[in-house]
């Protein structure tokens, strides 16, 4: 069980690096979608088969793996952009930051005490590495869609951490959290659309009217 889980977490960590290294938006969105789908499978692995857990898993795979990426692809086509050109943090430096962040996450996870049943899993390092990757993308990219992808990876990292609590927290809370996150991304998608119409670009460097 733990071995399968660790393979999936490792896959998610690998997808972090793919996301950091991809200069084309379709590739980035694909990496984020695949990561979301991989994450969605995990609750079923960790928890005994139970219709509520299965429901959460299906909702996660559908939301993170299908609905949100479709929304992003539509925004991308509407804005007519394919590539992320000249990001704030270049692709190679991003990758190096991501790799360094992954190593730091593993080291940091050693310092935090874990329950025996979680001691062998990569959940904490995987979570921290994804959060860091999300931050690099949020800060280092200039297109609004890339930043949304960064936000999604940040959320995926938090989702990984949440799996540690899956036995403890009632599913009601998890469902609420999932709902909030989904609505959040929908709202972001709508605003991206409005920015596109108002500014005729999704380059967030153009959003500089408001400053001191």
């Amino acid at each position, binding site marked *: 069980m733990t071995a399968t889980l660790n393979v999936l977490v490792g896959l998610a960590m690998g997808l972090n690096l793919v996301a950091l290294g991809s200069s084309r938006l379709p590739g980035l969105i694909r990496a984020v979608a695949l990561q979301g789908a991989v994450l969605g499978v995990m609750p079923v692995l960790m928890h005994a088969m139970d219709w509520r857990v299965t429901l959460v898993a299906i909702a996660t795979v559908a939301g993170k793996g299908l609905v949100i990426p479709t929304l992003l692809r539509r925004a991308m086509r509407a804005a007519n952009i394919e590539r992320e050109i000249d990001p704030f943090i270049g692709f190679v430096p991003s990758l190096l930051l991501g790799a360094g962040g992954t190593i730091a996450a593993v080291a940091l996870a050693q*310092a*935090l*005490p*874990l*329950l025996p049943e979680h001691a062998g899993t990569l959940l904490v390092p995987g979570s921290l590495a994804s*959060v860091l990757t999300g*931050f690099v993308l*949020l800060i280092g990219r200039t297109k*609004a869609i890339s*930043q949304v992808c960064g*936000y999604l990876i*940040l*959320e995926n*990292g*938090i989702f990984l*951490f*949440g799996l*540690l*609590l899956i*036995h*403890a*927290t009632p599913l009601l*809370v998890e469902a*609420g*959290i999932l709902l*909030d996150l989904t*609505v*959040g991304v929908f*709202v*972001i998608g709508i*605003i991206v659309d*409005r*920015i596109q119409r*108002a*500014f005729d670009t999704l380059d*967030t460097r153009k*959003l500089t*009217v*408001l400053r*001191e």
Partner: protein
Amino acid sequence: MNAYLLIIVPMAAAALAALWPGDRTRPWLLPITGAAHVVLSVWMLIAPPAVSDAAWLGFDPLARAMLPAVSILFLCCAVYGLNYLRLRTERPNRIFVACLLAVLGLLSAGHMARHLGLLWIAVEGVTLAAVPLLHFNGTPRAYEATWKYLLVGGTGIALSLLGSFCLGYASIHGGGSGDLTFHALAAQGAGLSRPWVLAAWVLLLAGYGTKMGLAPMHTWKPDAYGEAPAIVGAVLAGGVTTVAFVALLRIRAVVAAAGVGPVVDRTLLVIGLFSMVVAALFLLGTRDFKRMLAYSSVEHMGILAIGAALGGAGVWAALFHVWNNSLTKGALFLSAGNIRRAAGARTMDEVGGMAAITPRSAAIFVTGMFAVTACPPFGPFFSELRILRAAFATGNGIAAAVFLGSLLFVFFGLTRVVFGIVDGRPRTAARKVRERFPETMGVILPAVALLGFSLLLGLATPSVLIEAWDAAVIQLFPVP
């Protein structure tokens, strides 16, 4: 049961607003719901309901000490909003009214949430429901502000979720059953795993601190407050920041019970003082009077954080200051909205002589400015004085000195901008705009009422409030 009504009534009204057919009659839902909410919350303020320890939601002493302030602020904003939306008939208001009511319902839920996860859901809900309010004006600048709000606020809220998970794991690691109500967490006390509690505190302070607008996580505030309509600014500055402060107070109590209270108080004190200094410096530079209000809000959030760091007396003063901040800031935002509409611009370079064009709003704006900079006999003077006394009593002399110094520079900054736009010769362009946006009673009285409350809090603080704040302090600092 009544406690649930505080959430159900606004939510039902929001659903009704979303279905209501007419744009002209729909805004009436705002004051009606606001009035019902005030009646409910003031009734429960006077006759507090019993709350069981295990309840996930409840009108407990902390909610009782804060929620009525938000309720009163919302009612005044709702009356103003009714008149404001009449002036803005060119924009559809279905989403605006529905979201504003949903914000009220979620704010009530956030104040009353006694469960870590539920609190997060409510605060996240408020953040999302406020998004359509921010870009009501539909200008490119409004979308820019909304984007920044979403990106910074979204990241903050994500960090607070991670922090909530860490606190939950601290409980499970310490042998907890997974009951994440604040009462159960605090009862576990020193049993919580210390490294996880510290990690949780850092993340939660960053997350909810972003929502409060503590420096250096305040960057969304000037943009959002500058571009949003006046009522939205008032509700954000007086309500959303308050719910984030409630969250920090509840979490502080848990973390202090785990035995890291001194660390927590020191971080709160430092971040509070830093917010005040940053706000004072930016206030000396800004030329835009709506952005000025945002920096003033950052300053007041700093004051709240400092109060929360200074033990029981400090928290008591901070609760008092929450009321003062919500009501006084509301008056400032509403009068600033009137001035902004009549002037057609927002910076000192374009606006002048508003005392001649909008005499009543200008008078409220100047009075509100004196109230918010803690001139007696308004409420903020007394709450800030109590925080200062708590600082000296706990031996934080240097903090008190920085506090006073920042207040002085904030005063310079605010007077510079306020008198810059109120005094002088009116611009000719503004005279024409004035005809379209006359100063009716509907947009003046709500601001006057808020200012009156602030004065009442200073001159004769109602004894029921004093009792409510006492009870909240006892809840947060249980005697062992």
